[in-house]
């Protein structure tokens, strides 16, 4: 990021290759259409470019970028005036048909369960579980206190455990 701020255009490509696949996967899990997901990722990188002089060297880029992405996603849903709804996968991972059907069903269950959770719990679980952020990083992205994040995670995971209780374990 420091190189990009310094004017190295090749550094943008490296940033894009490192973060875009993860952002795209995150957006696809949360917005209805694949075009919307791609548009939000594109907007995230455009906003990164516009805000590049705000970036403090030495700071972790990933939570910074995820904060932009989450804010854009919020704006997207505010425009649509509806609760986030999970889409169907556009690009399911390659696997044998029977496994793919089972995986899609499991994914649909998880999405339905996530959609039932309150927004605050869903955001925390998305960042903690799917994005692998630590709780302090989740707190930074969402602008919450660490204890509030832990409470939301605790409640969210408990709710998910109940919602997914009868889900069979995944096949190896």
């Amino acid at each position, binding site marked *: 990021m420091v190189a990009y701020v310094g004017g190295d255009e090749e550094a943008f490509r490296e940033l*894009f*290759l490192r973060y*875009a*696949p*993860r952002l*795209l*996967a995150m957006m*696809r*899990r949360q917005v209805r259409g694949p075009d919307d997901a*791609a548009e939000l*990722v*594109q907007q995230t*990188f*455009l*906003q990164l*470019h*516009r*805000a590049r*002089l705000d*970036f403090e060297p030495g700071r972790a880029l990933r939570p*910074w*970028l995820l904060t932009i992405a*989450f*804010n*854009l996603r919020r*704006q997207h849903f*505010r*425009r649509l005036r509806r609760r986030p709804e999970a889409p169907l*996968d556009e690009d399911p*991972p*390659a696997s044998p048909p029977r496994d793919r059907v089972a*995986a*899609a069903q*499991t*994914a649909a*269950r*998880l*999405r339905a369960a996530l959609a039932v959770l309150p927004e605050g719990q869903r955001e925390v679980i998305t960042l*903690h*579980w*799917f*994005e*692998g*952020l*630590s*709780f302090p990083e989740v707190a930074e*992205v*969402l*602008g919450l206190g660490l204890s509030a994040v*832990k409470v939301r995670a*605790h409640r969210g*995971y*408990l709710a998910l*455990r109940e919602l*997914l*209780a009868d889900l069979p*374990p*995944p*096949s*190896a």
Partner: protein
Amino acid sequence: MDCAVVRDGLLAGSLEQSPELEAHLSTCRGCALLVAGGAELGRALAGAAAAAGTPMAAEGARPESLAELERRAVCAIRAERGPLAWLRSRPTPLRITLAVALAAGLVGACALFAGREDLGRLDALELGVVLGGAGVTLVAASLRLLRPLHAPPAAGWTGAALCAMGLAVPTVLALITSRAGAPEDGQPVAAMLGAASPCLALGLLGAAPLLALTVALRRTRADGGTVAALGGVAAGLTGYLCLHVHCGATDRAHLLLGHVAVVALAMGLGLLPDAVTRRRARG
């Protein structure tokens, strides 16, 4: 050990008991829940996540769709040229300083070159209350309007609250600074409007530069109508303050119709750029 290692271990089905894991679980309630009770939730999430697109599964996103996305992102960034793009990419503290400095400069210039005759004799406390009240609201509106997207989200009510404050503060100030026994009693509405219209026009003229600057300094037009209106609030308050140091009228109707109305009209004008952008997007 951290949360990511626990998650990856669950996804891979390779999470085993170890002192490091125990130490982590003792401090992390989220992970402790995931692996508790035979890790049924962890396994369920692992299976669902693998299909739903975890960071790992994302690596399998179609290369051509990523390449196309990269091409579009690069095109959008290459289009960021010219003075407007330069302005909105300035660091946030500088963008806010520019907006506030322009407002202060406009009010100062108005006081210096077109100040009311009794400006030097105004009650210092009253002048301080007006400048302070409107000034603080103006700075707060600018801070919210130009809040960067990499900052944690502001509470949803702040935009609406600042818009309401932008109208309430000058209204209260106008009521405070108006004089009893003012000559508006019995005056026809048309005459009151006629007397107020020069101030209304001058106030909007004073508001216009800051309105244009805030439109240029904003980095996104998707943050909602109330936030967009804050540009009009900041600009309208600038126009209001310009009128306060320029016009010596003290009757209540004139202050409300000629001075405070500038803020309301500027708020409406602040919404226009977003409306135009939305219409273009739909088109």
